[in-house]
């Protein structure tokens, strides 16, 4: 597989960041950045990361199965991650998740038919003092109300048109 030039440069740098012979360390970062570029972890990506890091495909596969941010199914173009852990729960995180689910017509870890949105209930995302919080791909949204969530979805839908 060949990745866009910036990503190739990042991978070159990444492989040199770890001590000689320890390139296995690049497995998780490489999977994460590559997944962002191609949308999910494919069997080809597993092979490719294994080749580049000098490990077996099985060693890469085991890692994919462990980490919740690595996924073998595509998410929507906007992956909405709503926190319902304690600080968010105390300030309406569960209601927010239910609202998102109703508005988008999808359940936890599902995607809309047009591939525009997917939804996930997540554990604490480090935004407890600005609860309830959610992440859209990698972007944080704080003190979110159902109205604010509607506005966000509206604006993302508009952008997509």
């Amino acid at each position: 597989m060949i990745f866009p030039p910036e990503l190739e440069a990042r991978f070159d740098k990444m492989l040199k960041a770890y001590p000689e012979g320890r390139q296995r360390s690049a497995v998780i970062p490489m999977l994460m950045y590559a997944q962002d570029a191609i949308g999910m972890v494919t069997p080809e990506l597993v092979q490719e990361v294994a080749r580049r890091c000098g490990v077996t495909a099985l060693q890469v596969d085991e890692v994919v199965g462990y980490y919740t941010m690595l996924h073998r199914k595509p998410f929507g173009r906007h992956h909405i991650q709503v926190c319902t852990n304690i600080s968010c729960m105390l300030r309406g995180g569960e209601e927010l998740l239910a609202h998102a689910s109703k508005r988008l017509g999808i359940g936890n870890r599902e995607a809309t038919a047009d591939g525009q949105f997917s939804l996930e209930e997540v554990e604490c995302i480090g935004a407890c003092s600005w609860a309830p919080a959610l992440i859209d791909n990698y972007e944080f949204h704080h003190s979110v109300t159902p109205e604010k969530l509607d506005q966000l979805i509206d604006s993302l839908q508009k952008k997509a048109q």
Partner: protein
Amino acid sequence: MRLYNEPNPLEVKILTRRFGITNSHTLDVYLQNDGFQAFQKALGMKPDQIIDEMKASGLRGRGGAGFPAGMKWSFVPRSSPKPKYIVVNADESEPGTCKDRLLMEYDPIQMIEGMMIAGLAIDSHKAYVYVRGEYRYLIDLLDRVIDELYARGWLGKSIHGSGFDFDVYTHTGAGSYECGEETALLDSLEGKRGVPRLKPPFPAVAGAWASPTLLTNVETFSAVPAIIRDGGAAFAALGTPRNGGTRMFCLSGHIERPGVYELPMGFNLLQMINEVGGGVRGGRKLKAVVPGGSSCPVLKADECDIAMDFDALAKAKSMLGSGGVVILDETTCMVKFAMRIMKFYAHESCGWCIPCREGTAWLKKTLIRFHDGHGTSKDIDLIDDIAKNMLGRTFCALGDAAAMPTISIVEKFRDEFEAYLAKSSTTVRVPELTVV
């Protein structure tokens, strides 16, 4: 959105002193505001002198366990045939905790300067910042800052002609609470599943790639420049005996002014809630407080007149933990609270050891059933019993982290559990028994 608050008059701003200055994350602003003075001073000190200042500061690890930082530094062997490494724990995923984010967003170079000073003290020249995957924007920010530091001679070979080499790299996690546990973090850094290692050997002796490794939380490293610049004694004097300095307290939950505040160690919890946080939301009554992240035993309202330091909380059979102070008002259902906490730990248990893997799953199942209105008369004791049997018997502290709050909730709010159960037969919440 700006994440720091308007300074509160009760705050003592040491680590957050540059917050609020425009572009506080950039090298120029850092240099204009005492940046790298501590590093320059440390260049003229012997490693032992640096470690002695750290010991004198009374700084204790801000990741959760509160281990004395100076002592940890001194455990790294002096001479080692293998290279030594520095690893920053920026996995920040203890529910209720959101402080490391601010330190990296508004003053990343302060943390890096702390790592460099640690490098001088333990003779290490390579450092990795392990950042949770969700904080990608911070990884990007750190990468830009690091590039600038290299470009301007503050990282790399012989920093500003000192002969001291230092390299820093970021490393992304991929979604796992367990990877905040130090040895699981090291396995994750090595490209494996985040499963804990047997201790000893401790990371100071055999850590990353089986080499001596100093692994410390973001906030702990961020405190180092102030300690070296102004002296360990000055830092110690800000706090209480054996609990030096200030720390970042993350107020969340049912509170008027949630936010992250820097307060002296030993600050009174009630004062924190009422005067810093503006009181319980909506003027309601306080019910309980999680003093340091969801792993800590909860304090009942009448236990909250307490000094927030490691020792006072240990005496009250709780923990200062990671600084996540979650306020619960009188409307909070403790059954539901206990259930939500256990869902988290069951989800995050890595599955390596049986008491944690089976214990959290069993507790989750029982608590969900109880919450849904299908509790039995034996359940309250069962919950208490399972949790107590996990305590101290798991491979790493995740099992304890799940057991401790559960035991405290069941013990301190047993009446509420009993009343809930008594009502269950008439108010079944979920008609069908949930199979988890």
